[in-house]
């Protein structure tokens, strides 16, 4: 096995191990915390018999280890269990919603990634001049706003006052034609883009500036290369690995931002489903959604790791 393949195998198994511990954390976290699921579902006025019945039905009486392995076995074989409140299979409910969420996050990523790299480069090119300052001020503003604040401001301006886009995504149908789908998610995509744009731009700017301070860049400048050529030929190749890292970390961040944005725009995705069932205290659904979100998050971080190893020969030979 080559050194790269070995390194990759190592990283992937590390990711899987992490996911295994996360599953324990999610399960144990919801088992040992004070709070009685049965009581929460039935309310304070429930009779002791009803509580006992529900507990038996939920399997709360089994030892925790048995319950954990039942649950884990189910997930590994692709069975997420049934929702307590509706009695429906979680697989069915999640199937469509996961697709919707990934579509929304994917569209946002398609806009945000190229835009933020371009703006990050622009900020470096005009460092300490007005474009850089304008970009910094904008990022400071968007970083300081929770997703829902940005969402409602854009909804009010573009959806309600100007009527350019539909204010909510209630009418979103996954089987509609592509343009209709894009139209109904225009505002959520805009919000998500702005949210990750700020982080991504700041980090891209920092990564490139870091490279720009190296000695070989100074040499290139001293021999009279134009700034854009210096960036393109010397700075960018060396900055790829930190930038890819930035992009992946922000895509992971997008996964979380999507939860709130879906609630704001009433978009039928995973996030809304999760929040809904936290309110209803439907534990199996919350555990299933939690583990899926964590898996996507860990997966994207893993990809960031692997790509930076592949693009940076220095990392391929750890001491």
């Amino acid at each position, binding site marked *: 096995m080559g050194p790269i393949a070995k390194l990759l195998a190592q990283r992937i198994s590390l990711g899987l191990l*992490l996911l295994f*511990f*996360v599953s324990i*954390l*999610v399960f144990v*976290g*919801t088992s040992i*915390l*004070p*709070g009685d*699921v049965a009581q*929460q579902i039935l309310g304070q006025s429930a009779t002791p018999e009803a509580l006992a019945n529900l507990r038996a039905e939920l399997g709360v009486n089994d030892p925790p280890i048995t319950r954990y392995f039942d649950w884990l076995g189910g997930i590994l074989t692709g069975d997420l269990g049934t929702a307590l409140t509706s009695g429906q299979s979680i697989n069915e409910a999640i199937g469509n919603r996961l697709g919707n969420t990934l579509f929304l996050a994917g569209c946002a990523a398609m806009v945000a990634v190229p835009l933020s790299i371009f703006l990050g480069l622009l900020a470096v090119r005009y460092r300490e001049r007005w474009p850089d300052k304008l970009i910094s001020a904008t990022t*400071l*503003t968007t*970083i*300081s*706003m*929770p*997703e*829902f*604040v940005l969402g*409602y*401001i854009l*909804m*009010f301006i573009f959806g*309600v*006052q100007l009527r350019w886009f539909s*204010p*909510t995504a209630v009418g979103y149908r996954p089987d509609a034609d592509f343009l209709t789908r894009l139209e109904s998610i225009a505002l959520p995509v805009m919000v998500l883009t702005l949210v990750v744009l700020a982080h991504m731009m700041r980090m891209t700017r920092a990564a490139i500036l870091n490279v720009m301070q190296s000695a070989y860049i100074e040499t290139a400048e001293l021999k009279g290369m134009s700034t854009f050529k210096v960036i393109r030929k010397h700075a960018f190749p060396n900055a790829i690995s930190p930038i890819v890292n930035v992009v992946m970390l922000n895509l*992971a*961040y997008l*996964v*979380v931002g999507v*939860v*709130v944005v879906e*609630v*704001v725009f009433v978009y039928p995705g995973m996030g809304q489903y*999760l*929040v809904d*069932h*936290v*309110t209803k*205290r*439907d*534990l199996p659904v*919350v*555990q299933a*959604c*939690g583990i899926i*979100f*964590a898996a996507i*998050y*860990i997966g994207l*971080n893993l990809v960031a790791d692997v790509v930076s190893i592949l693009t940076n020969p220095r990392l391929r030979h750890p001491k």
Partner: protein
Amino acid sequence: MFVRIPFAAMLGLICTGLFFLVAIFAPLLAPYGYDEVVSNGFWDPASSEYLLGTDGIGRDLLSRIIYGLRTTIWIATLATLLSFTTGSVLGFLAAVTGGWVDQALSRFVDLMMSIPSLIFALVILSITPISVTVLILVIGLLDSTRVYRLARAVAVDITVMDYVEAARLRGEKTAWIIFREILPNALSPLVAEMGLRFIFSVLFISTLSFLGLGIQPPQADLGGIVRENAEGLTYGIGAALYPALTIALLAISVNLVADWVLARTTSLKGGRG
């Protein structure tokens, strides 16, 4: 010693100060009670009587925002204090003792940070009863992982210093080393980080309340007030925008101050990186 404060930082300081003053003196400043129904209509427009109009069930919006600001700032402050005490004490402990304590704590923090905080909080809140105490605990403890990493990194640099070695040789206890040797020397980077953690707590509690999993009605923090009035937006009533903008302004002001403190302490650190 006179320190020249840049304009942006000054603006941030003044605004942050104002926000805290409003929060402290909320009962004196608010024209009406936070749950006092003062009008029969809903979403009355702004008038001399109700400066920002009324909300969906006829409560004065300005009073509600003032009280909401108080709740938000109060919870965020307590959560920040909690995350700082837990995070820095554990971080210092890990750096000073090293060995398996350090390994166990650090790997556990890695694990906690591999799940997005919001998702983790949602999982926890699905089972615990939702109260102010639980919210402060959840936000503070989830945030303490970040403080832990910073505190540990700073303290690891300090533990190799001669004066720590001297204290060890004198036979001082671990607690003495942590509080008398490490803490005073690690304080400036930690304080600089405090502003950022405070903003994080503000955004976190606002988001949770907005999702309906934070402060429960009729009590409300800023996020909760946005939620209550969000319905009005589709009818062209902008009531929800006022609390939303308050959150943004609060976070921006603190950010301006934090940016300045952060820049100052990094330049103070000089070549030590």
